[in-house]
């Protein structure tokens, strides 16, 4: 089913594809900033830019790299804009889950978000694009404008750090997630 009645049928496939990627973009944006409001803003701006500078859809994978490159650019703009001025307080990950299973799931989410929020920016970007957006190494390299070798080394460092933190967290009660702007360990 077509999402919208786009004025130009030739481009409708591209537009529909862009819109369909909103939640995927949101997940990656959230993994970078850990703020719902900011992630929403980043996705909105990404889609606006993508629509403004839209190019014909060749295939989904080609669009992927391009779309996430725009998201990364929006994120980097945000980082520059907030540099030296950001002051966001830590926040807790709240949930009203009450069954044991839901509680366990919430614990896992909290631990993962926490561990991710403490990764260095560059490592977090790479691991998000590969594990959450499911981009290839080459697509990730293009999205972030770095060599594939850099992607591989950042990915490895990120995964090692996540493993250490998640192992440590399993032995501790859930704490605070560091949102965008808070300092790393």
């Amino acid at each position, binding site marked *: 089913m077509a999402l919208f009645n786009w004025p130009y049928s030739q481009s409708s496939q591209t537009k529909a594809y862009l819109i369909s990627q909103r939640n995927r973009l*949101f997940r990656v944006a959230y993994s970078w900033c850990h703020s719902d*409001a900011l992630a929403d803003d980043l996705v909105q701006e990404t889609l606006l830019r993508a629509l403004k500078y839209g190019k014909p859809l060749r295939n989904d994978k080609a669009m992927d790299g391009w779309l996430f490159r725009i998201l990364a650019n929006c994120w980097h703009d945000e980082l520059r*804009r*907030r540099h030296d001025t950001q002051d966001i307080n830590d926040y807790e990950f709240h949930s009203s889950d009450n069954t044991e299973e839901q509680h366990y799931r919430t614990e896992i989410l909290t631990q993962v978000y926490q561990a991710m929020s403490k990764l260095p920016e560059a490592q977090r970007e790479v691991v998000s694009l590969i594990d959450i957006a499911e981009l290839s190494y080459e697509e990730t390299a293009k999205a972030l404008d770095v060599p594939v070798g850099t992607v591989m080394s950042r990915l*490895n460092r990120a995964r090692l750090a996540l493993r250490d933190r998640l192992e440590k967290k399993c032995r501790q009660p859930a704490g605070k997630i560091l949102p965008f702007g808070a300092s790393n360990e």
Partner: protein
Amino acid sequence: MNNSDTISDEQINAFIDNELDADDYARILRLSQSDVLLTQRIDERRNQKEMLAFAYKQKKSNTPFTDDDNSARTWKSLAAAVLVFVFGGVAGITGTMQIANNPSQSLIEKIALQEAAPEKMILQISSNDPARIKAALNDAELLLRQSKLKNQNIQLEVIANADGLNMLRIESPYQKTISSLSANHDNVRFLACGTGMSKFKQKGINLTLVPQAEVVSAVTTQVAMRLNQGWSYLRE
């Protein structure tokens, strides 16, 4: 030395990420069948990858776009407005949207960059950064004053959402500036995003706004409407 020692972490990453060619993939697969340690390392990485994907799969955008019928219309309207800008005039609409977000540029510079000086502008403020809010209000004041001197009939809407709503709070340090701008210029409006207000309320914070502020349903609705009407869109 067992097989596990000869396979690097990077190779295990490439294995679970499907980045190896067929020969290398087959080699690691074969080695793992006779090496428990290697299998453990692979499983550990794969589990971690799946856990990460699972954790963020729970996150979904909560923008008004998908909340209800209204939000769907909002997004449709916004997208249509953008398309109008991208592909040229349709049905007589000639929007001049500008996505201006270069942090090093002031509002005035952003406007100056546009091909034709816009007469109707909507400026979105999402940040609680005092320097940016102050700069935006100063620029807005300059713009309004100059247009008045030149007898230019401009219209400006300053819309605050998310953390930017703090600018419109009654206890805001910008209250006097906003009051002065509204008193001296009848062509400026200060708008607050209703969706953003609701989100604050959900967190137990009831925002009391300056009397000059008008609450609109959502920032996206307002921006979409103005884009449809040919306004310029700027973002601080």
